[in-house]
C-alpha cells in the first residue's frame, strides 16, 4: 500500500519539529585479543583495533542519516571491560590505557568511548582493583572515556566492599575535577544488573556474551511522545498508554531500519535497538513534561510514579513489537541535568532525592546526572549507591547511580556542566550518617526469587 500524504507529513514533523533522532549508534568492540605481557603492546593493539574497526563509523553514520533524513546525533564506541586487560598492570599503566582510549576516541571523532569498566558484583579481581584505583585520575586526565562499575546483581547480591570503594572513588573523582564542576563524576556509572548491550553513555560496555564487534542503536524521542499526547488532552489512561505505544513503535521502526543499514555498510552484525526516552535540554524534549502532560501539575508530586510506570511500560510494549531485537535499557531515562522539566521540578520544590529514588523503581535505569552538595561524605555516597542497588536487586531490574558531588557547592545553588550534560540544581543529602553500614563491608546475599511480596 502506498504511503499516504499524512503519514509522510507525520514523519517529517517528527524529525523537523519534535526532535525525533537516532540518539546514538554505538559500535561494541571486544578487546580481549589485545592482552599481552608487554603493556606497551597492549596499548598499541587497543588503539589499532579500535581505530581500524570503527574507522568508518562517523562517515557511514552521517551518510545514512542524510539519505534517510533522520539525524544520528552521536557515534560512540563501547569496549569489553578494560579491567580484563589490567591483571598484570600497575595503576599508572591503567591510567595510560584510559589515555590511549581517549586518543582513539579523538582520532575517530566520537564523543564518548565506554567500557573503562569492571564487573565486581561478587568479587574484585586484581585487574578490577587496579582499574578502581586508577579511576579518579583516569577520569580526570581523559575527556571522552566513560566508566561503569557493576556492584550488584539479583543473582549475586550486593558487593558492599565494592560499594564502599565506589563512594570514595566518586568523592575522589569529584575532587580531582573540582576546577571543572567535578565533571569527572558525570562519566562514571555504578550499576546493579547492568546490561551487556546498552548503547547509551556513560554506561555502555561490550559485554562478555557479545561477539567480536556489534552495532547497537539507541533511539530517542520524548518530544515526539509529548506532542502525540498533546493531541489527546482528554483521553483516559488506557488510551494514553496506547498513544505512547504507537509512537514508540514508529520511533523504533525508524531506528531499526537506519541501524541495520549502518551495520550492513560497516559489515558488522546488528546488535540491538534500545528504545529509551532520553531527554535533552532542547525545548519540549523532556521526559518530565510527558509526565506533566499525563496529568501532573509538576513532576515529583503525588502520582509521578504511577504516570512514569505507565509511560515506561507503554514505551517497552511499542518498542518490543517494532523490532526483533530490542535490548539495552529500553524504557525512560530520568536524568536531572539533561531534562528542563526535571530541573524545574527540583527548583520549585516538587521533586527531591527521595522521590527520584522512588521513580527509579519503575523507570528504566536509576539516579542519573544528579548534582549533590560537595560535602557529601564518601560513606553517604556509598549508601546512596547501596539503596539504589537494593532497589535493582529486589526488583530484578537495572539501576544505576551517576551522581556528581560538586565540590564547593551547597544545596540550592546551580551548577552548569555545559553542552549535552546540561545544568542542575544542587540537592542536599541527609545529615545523618550511614558510616557504620558501609564500614561493615561484606556482601548482601542474593535475594529470594519466591515469596515475592
Amino acid at each position: 500500500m502506498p504511503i499516504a500524504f499524512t503519514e509522510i507529513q507525520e514523519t517529517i514533523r517528527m524529525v523537523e519539529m519534535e526532535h525525533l533522532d537516532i540518539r546514538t549508534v554505538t559500535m561494541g568492540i571486544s578487546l580481549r585479543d589485545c592482552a599481552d605481557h608487554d603493556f606497551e603492546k597492549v596499548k598499541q593493539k587497543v588503539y589499532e583495533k579500535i581505530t581500524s574497526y570503527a574507522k568508518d563509523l562517523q562517515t557511514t553514520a552521517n551518510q545514512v542519516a542524510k539519505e534517510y533524513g533522520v539525524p544520528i546525533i552521536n557515534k560512540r564506541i563501547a569496549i569489553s571491560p578494560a579491567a580484563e586487560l589490567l591483571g598484570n598492570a600497575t595503576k599508572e599503566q591503567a591510567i595510560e590505557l584510559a589515555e590511549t582510549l581517549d586518543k582513539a576516541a579523538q582520532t575517530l571523532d566520537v564523543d564518548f568511548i565506554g567500557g573503562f569498566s569492571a564487573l565486581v558484583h561478587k568479587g574484585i579481581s586484581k585487574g578490577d582493583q587496579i582499574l578502581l584505583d586508577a579511576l579518579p585520575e583516569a577520569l580526570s586526565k581523559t575527556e571522552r572515556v566513560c566508566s561503569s562499575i557493576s556492584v550488584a546483581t539479583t543473582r549475586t547480591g550486593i558487593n558492599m566492599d565494592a560499594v564502599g570503594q565506589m563512594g570514595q572513588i566518586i568523592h575522589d573523582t569529584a575532587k580531582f575535577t573540582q576546577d571543572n564542576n567535578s565533571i569527572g563524576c558525570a562519566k562514571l556509572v555504578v550499576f546493579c544488573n547492568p546490561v551487556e548491550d546498552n548503547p547509551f553513555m556513560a554506561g555502555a560496555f561490550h559485554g562478555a556474551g557479545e561477539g567480536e564487534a556489534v552495532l547497537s542503536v539507541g533511539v530517542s524521542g520524548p518530544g515526539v511522545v509529548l506532542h502525540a499526547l498533546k493531541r489527546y488532552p482528554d483521553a483516559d489512561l488506557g488510551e494514553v498508554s496506547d498513544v505512547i505505544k504507537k509512537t514508540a513503535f514508529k520511533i523504533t521502526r525508524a531506528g531499526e531500519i537506519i541501524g541495520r543499514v549502518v551495520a550492513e555498510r560497516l559489515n558488522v552484525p546488528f546488535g540491538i535497538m534500545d528504545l529509551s526516552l532520553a531527554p535533552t535540554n532542547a525545548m519540549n524534549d523532556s521526559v518530565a513534561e510527558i509526565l506533566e502532560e499525563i496529568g501532573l501539575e509538576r513532576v515529583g508530586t503525588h502520582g509521578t510514579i504511577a504516570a512514569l510506570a505507565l509511560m515506561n511500560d507503554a514505551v517497552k510494549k511499542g518498542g518490543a513489537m517494532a523490532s526483533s531485537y530490542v535490548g539495552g535499557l529500553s524504557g525512560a531515562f530520568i536524568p536531572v541535568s539533561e531534562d528542563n522539566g526535571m530541573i524545574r521540578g527540583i527548583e520549585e520544590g516538587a521533586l527531591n532525592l527521595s522521590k527520584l529514588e522512588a521513580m527509579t523503581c519503575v523507570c528504566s535505569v536509576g539516579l542519573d546526572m544528579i548534582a549533590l552538595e560537595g560535602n557529601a561524605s564518601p560513606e553517604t555516597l556509598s549508601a546512596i549507591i547501596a539503596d539504589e542497588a537494593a532497589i535493582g536487586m529486589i526488583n530484578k531490574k537495572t539501576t544505576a547511580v551517576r551522581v556528581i558531588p560538586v565540590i564547593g557547592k551547597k544545596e540550592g545553588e546551580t551548577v552548569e556542566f555545559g553542552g549535552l550534560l546540561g545544568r542542575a540544581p544542587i540537592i542536599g543529602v541527609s545529615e545523618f550518617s550511614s558510616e557504620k553500614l558501609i564500614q561493615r563491608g561484606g556482601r548482601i546475599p542474593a535475594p529470594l526469587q519466591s515469596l515475592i511480596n
Partner: protein
Amino acid sequence: MQKRAVVSVVGKDQVGIIAKVTTVISDNNINILDISQTILEGFFTMIMLIEINDPSNLETLQEKFKPVEQALGLKINIQLEDVFQAMHRV
C-alpha cells in the same frame, strides 16, 4: 540499485513552486512517480515520489535544490522511501 525517495517541499504558497522544483528534478534526469500537493494552514505542502539510481546522489540533489529553497523561501527534504515504509507499515 533502483530506489525510491520522497521529496517534501514546504513553504509559503506562491506562484511557480511546482515549476521551479520539478525543473531541478528534470534537469537531473530524474523520473517522478507521484506528486501530491495541498495548502495546509496557508502553507504550501508538496510531496513527490522520485526514482533514484544511487542513494549517494541524494546529497548532490539536495545541494541543487538550495538555490530554489533560497529564492522561494522553501524547505525541501529528500529521504529514501524505506524509512516511511518502516514507520507506517507493519
